[in-house]
Each structure stands twice: as C-alpha cells, then as structure tokens.
C-alpha cells in the first residue's frame, strides 16, 4: 500500500476533478514513482485509493507508453528516433548506447543505472537528435555529448 504522504497527494489531485476516476492517470504516475514501476501492488494501491477496479487501472495504464510495467534503472533515458531525429542520426546513437552502456531498447543496464526507452517524437525536432534523461531535455546530441551528459547521472 501507499505511504500516507502518497495517499494525501492523490487525494489532493482528486480534488482537481469532478470525479475520482479522472485522477487515475496522475495517480498512476504517483504509484510509478512510489513503487519504481507498476507492480501489482502499485495497481492495487491506486485501485483502493481511487475506488477504480484494479483490472481497469491496469488496462488503462498499459495503454500509455510512458508508464513502466517492469522495474526500471535509476535513470530513464528516452531517446527519440522519429523521422526528424532519425534523419539526423538517431539510429547511430541507439547503437552507441548499446555498445557503450549495454543499453537495449526497453532494457536496463546491468548495473541498474539506466533504462532506455525509444521514443516517438518528443518535440525537439528542431534540435534533433534529442533525448530526455529523467525530466531533462538534451538536444543536438552526438556520441560524445551523450557521454558527457550521462556522466552526470550516477
């Protein structure tokens, strides 16, 4: 079950909507943060706080690409490979992440430091190729630049 603070947080979010159900997406974000990923316990917790059936919670959660359905590394690397990034070399960067950090698309590095998710467009096409590390945008990427960036995330 959630910690008391998380329950409070969800209850506060719930106040922003006329129905409890509408708080589902944000509550799943909270659960993901609290449990690290959407474990069965995470779903059960959301279900019991919002009174939404647990299968429904899971069904909704699995619809969205940004919810994590397996344990994740400490830092989340989200690299865009959509057309604008692709034509400016994003695919090479995918290879680079694999060779340099052992990061496969959808996978986690063996030291648990990073998880990699290949993204559809992240809205940084003018400065492609681009990625998000956790909540931060990094743009005009090169292999060298990626190395520098990832140094900051231990």
């Amino acid at each position, binding site marked *: 079950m959630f910690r008391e603070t998380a329950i409070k947080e969800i209850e506060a979010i719930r106040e*922003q909507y*006329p*129905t409890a*159900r*509408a*708080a*589902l*997406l*944000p509550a*799943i*974000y909270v659960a993901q943060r609290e449990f690290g990923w959407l474990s069965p316990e995470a779903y059960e917790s959301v279900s019991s706080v919002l009174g*939404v059936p647990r299968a429904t919670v899971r*069904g*909704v959660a699995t*619809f*969205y*690409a*940004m*919810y994590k359905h397996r344990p994740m590394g400490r830092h989340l690397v*989200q690299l865009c*490979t*959509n*057309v*604008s990034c*692709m*034509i*400016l070399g994003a695919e090479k960067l995918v290879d680079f992440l694999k060779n340099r950090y052992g990061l496969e698309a959808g996978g986690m590095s063996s030291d648990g430091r990073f998880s990699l998710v290949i*993204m*559809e*467009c*992240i*809205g*940084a*096409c*003018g*400065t*492609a190729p681009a990625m*998000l590390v956790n*909540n*931060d*945008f990094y743009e005009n990427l090169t292999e060298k630049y990626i190395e520098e960036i990832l140094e900051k995330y231990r």
Partner: protein
Amino acid sequence: MERVLLKNIENPESADINEYKKAGGYKGLPKALGMQPREIIDEVKKAGLRGRGGAGFPVAMKWTFASADPKFPKYLLCNADEGEPGTFKDRPILEKNPHILIEGMAISGYALGAEYGYVYLRGEYPGAKDVLNRAIAQAYEQGFLGDNIGGKGVRFHLAVHQGAGAYICGEETALIESLEGDKGQPRIKPPFPVNVGVFSKPTVVNNVETLSNLPYLIEIGGEAYSKIGSPDCPGPKIYCVSGHVERPGVYELPMGTSLKDIIYDHCGGMKAGRKLKAVIPGGISTPVLPPDKIDCPMDFVNMPKHGSMLGSGAVIVMDESVCLVKVCFRALKFFEHESCGKCTPCREGTGWLRKILGRIEHGEGVDGDIELLLSVAGNILGKTFCPLGDGAASVVQNFIKHFRPEFEEHIRAGKCMVNG
C-alpha cells in the same frame, strides 16, 4: 512581422508573470471582461481565427455551439498533446510563454461560459508541466484565475492534466477520454464534445497556439487581426522546421508564408547546400511533397490545393542523403505504435504495412509488394474510426505516389540506393 506568440522568449525569465506583464501581457483579458461573451465570440468570428491543432476548424463556430448548449458547467480544454512527429510549436509557448496561454484560456473561458479548464499536456513535456503549474499559481495570486477574475465575479479555474505517452490523445475525443481517466480511444460522434464532452458536459477543445492567439486578437480587435497573413485563415502562425536546413527551429510568421520561403529564406536554405529531396509540410501525417511542389502558401486553404495539408505546420526537410523507403517505414512504425487499437483496419493494417515496408527496406521485398501496400492502404483509408488510420494509409500512398522508383529499386536490388 513582430512576434506575438513567441514574443520575449529569448528573455530567460519570460515565463514569469511580471516579465509577461512588462512585455505587454494581461491586457487582452481585462478588455475582454469589459465585453459581453457574445461580443468576444463575434470578434473571434470577425478575426477568422482557425484552430491551429491541425484541422483548421473555425474557432468561433465551435464556441458558438458550446455556448448555446444549456448544460452546465462547461469545460475548456487546451490541447497540449503536441504529438504529431515533427511538431514542436506549442512547446516554446508552454515552456517560455505560459501566461499568454493562461490569459487566452481565461478569455476563452469567459467567452464560452466555461468555469473550468484543463491543459492536457503530453507526458513528454515534464519541464513544461512545472513551468505551467508555477505560472498558473502566479495567475491565481494576481487574480487572473479564480472565482473573481478582474474583480468582476468571473470564475475560471485551470489545472494541468498530464498525458502519459499516446499520440492519439491529441484527437479531441480521445483526449477527453484520457482526461476522464480512461484509455485514450476516440469516441463516437455525434454527440460532439461541444454538447457532450468531458464529464458529459459541453466542452471546447482548442490547441495551445489557437488559445494563445486570443489576448492579441482581443487587444487589436477582430478586424485588425483578420488583416494578418492569408485572408482565408488569417493570423500569426508558428511554423516549426526540422531536418536538413541551415537553421531549423520555430518561426512565427504570417499565416500563408510559402513553404519555399520558409525553407530558403527563414531557415537559411538547405544544410551545407545539399539538394532537397522531399518535404513533409505539416507533420508526418500530411502528404509528402517532392521539391517541385513546394511553392505553396502554408495555410489551411491553400495546402490542400497543392496536394498536401498544413496540419500542425511542422515542416520536415529531407535532403538527398535520406532514404524515403526508410522514412516511410519509420512513419508506419510510428502509426503502428500509436494506433489505439479500437478499429480493425488501423489496428491490423498499420502493422501489416509496417511489416511489408520493413521487408522492402531490409532488402526482402518481392514483386507485387508495392501493389500490396497500395491495396492494404486502400483498405484502411476511409474505413477507420478516426483520422489516425487515414493518416497512416495516406502516408504510404503519397510516398509511393511521389517516389515510387525508389521503392521499386529497393525491391529490385534488394538494397537501398541511398545508404547501400
């Protein structure tokens, strides 16, 4: 032209309410509050403002429907899902000029009689979420949001709702489903959101850029606004250009600026002087254009006449180094990934198209594959529940239409002409 929507964004503090006010912000709202809601809608009508989310629907018309519905409360939703690949025009507003959006929403809410608003923000913009939340808090503090806006007893409450990675949530009924805590799958229309929208109440969904036009529109009046850019769909427009140009980025220009000028004037032409091969003018769902078809005004009315669409105004420029089979393949991978799965042709067809394209791209194409692609695309087009599936089909059709030899060569040679 002086920038309106992206005014002041070089200022590192541009997202702060005081900077925004210093630069002339929060002038439209007080003026609007001095008008009758009906008058505001009339001004918007005079201005000829069209939605910037992609479809170019006349804003005043949508608003009139919603305000005429007697059900209460009404909702105003800002579509900040910006998922169309190649599009990054709303992000600078959200991250750097959030108050123009908030002011625009407060004006629109007043015009519609909507007391509640949500910004449906794509999950991929976590930074924008923080900026917006801070800006909303400031706007509450200074009385631009709340129960008594401008001391006139006008109510408008605003909150951010974060999406979680689903392109389809940009479609307005899917957005509503998602806001209600469900999967983002489009709803049956009618009823339309203006009558039965979020929480079953009358709802207007407008794009970030659309709503951000309101403060300026009200400030200068509909008449003056209608003189900007294309007479058929006037106003400032943010074009976002990516790919092989010298200066990619966002450009706020009068609506109707020609695609050619955008590429060759504003963006400094092709990168390293290489040769233009293809342009996707309005985001990946819009038909690709070959180099000889780019002399066209980028607006909702003229682009269809030139074989494409304005879409979100996301221009993707590709030079000779690009394999278009690969681009088409990548685009279909996108559609397959983003298909919500509700309807058969899109759910099954996008994957099938992607698989065929993948084979061709990887040198395993066989005779008849192009015809098969066209036939499968034909079985999708016009048969899907929402426009996403149509988009996927038309991408395939247009790439083949303009660049068929490249596909044929892939199949014949079993490899790529461009990248070997």
